[in-house]
């Protein structure tokens, strides 16, 4: 692998240099697969989405102006390929997450505060354990809530970008994200409260 600079790599791709395509894939396939797995939760589908994303990118490479890093551009294409797959999945009735949201009485005051978190408990957890706990909790969220957390809080899209990707209005994306974060807090709280003791 020659490990060319970004501009050289782009020019090599645009003139069809086979080694440049290999270099691009070796540098980006792992990250793209990871994104696809986070969104799709299915290894086989993640492979297919990654393949689709590369082929879409290759088809568009001639007109790519280099206004973003190739890795950023590939990331966006991968996210979109995954979301397209999610939209085409057999639709399941939206899973209710109300039971994971805070409960209030008729005056708007909290009924139950739930287990207390201890300050800095997150930072004290061993990283592999933290990853497992958090990822398992994210995976327990219904697709539409899991996806908005992945896009906004993990992949770093803005609310507006996430809304476009999800095909909803920004206000709806914001509301969905808020509910997803609350539900995730409920799922994580017992573990972190237990950890603090």
């Amino acid at each position: 692998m020659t490990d060319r600079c970004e501009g050289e790599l782009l020019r090599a791709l645009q003139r069809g240099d086979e080694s440049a395509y290999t270099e691009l894939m070796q540098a980006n396939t792992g990250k793209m697969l990871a994104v696809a797995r986070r969104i799709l939760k299915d290894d086989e589908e993640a492979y297919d989405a990654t393949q689709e994303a590369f082929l879409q990118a290759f088809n568009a490479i001639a007109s790519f102006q280099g206004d973003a890093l190739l890795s950023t551009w590939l990331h966006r294409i991968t996210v979109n390929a995954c979301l397209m797959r999610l939209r085409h999945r057999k639709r399941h009735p939206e899973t209710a997450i109300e039971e994971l949201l805070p409960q209030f009485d008729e005056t708007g005051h909290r009924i139950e505060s739930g287990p207390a978190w201890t300050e800095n408990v997150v930072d004290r957890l061993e990283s592999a354990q933290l990853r497992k706990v958090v990822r398992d909790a994210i995976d327990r969220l219904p697709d539409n809530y899991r996806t908005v957390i992945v896009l906004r809080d993990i992949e770093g899209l803005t609310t507006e970008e996430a809304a476009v990707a999800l095909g909803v209005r920004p206000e709806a994306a914001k509301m969905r994200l808020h509910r997803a974060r609350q539900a995730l807090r409920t799922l994580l709280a017992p573990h972190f409260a237990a950890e603090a003791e």
Partner: protein
Amino acid sequence: MHERINCRELIELLDDYVEQRLAGAERARFDDHLGRCPACRRYLMGYQGTMRAVALACAPDAATPPEVPGELIAAILASRRAS
């Protein structure tokens, strides 16, 4: 004297608060409620902890990217040649 908010209204403002978009009278109402409500303080701590946990657990360098199967790269290259 600003109007007080209840726990439900505080929750609705949480994202704006943690993303530092809350200002003026709204921020004052938020802080006032937080000062009087231990349950909301606990909730906020957990909410911020959740966001930090996600950031730490899912940061790009937090996990080794999955091993890239050679057959996947070969399949993509073959599809490119065929297209």
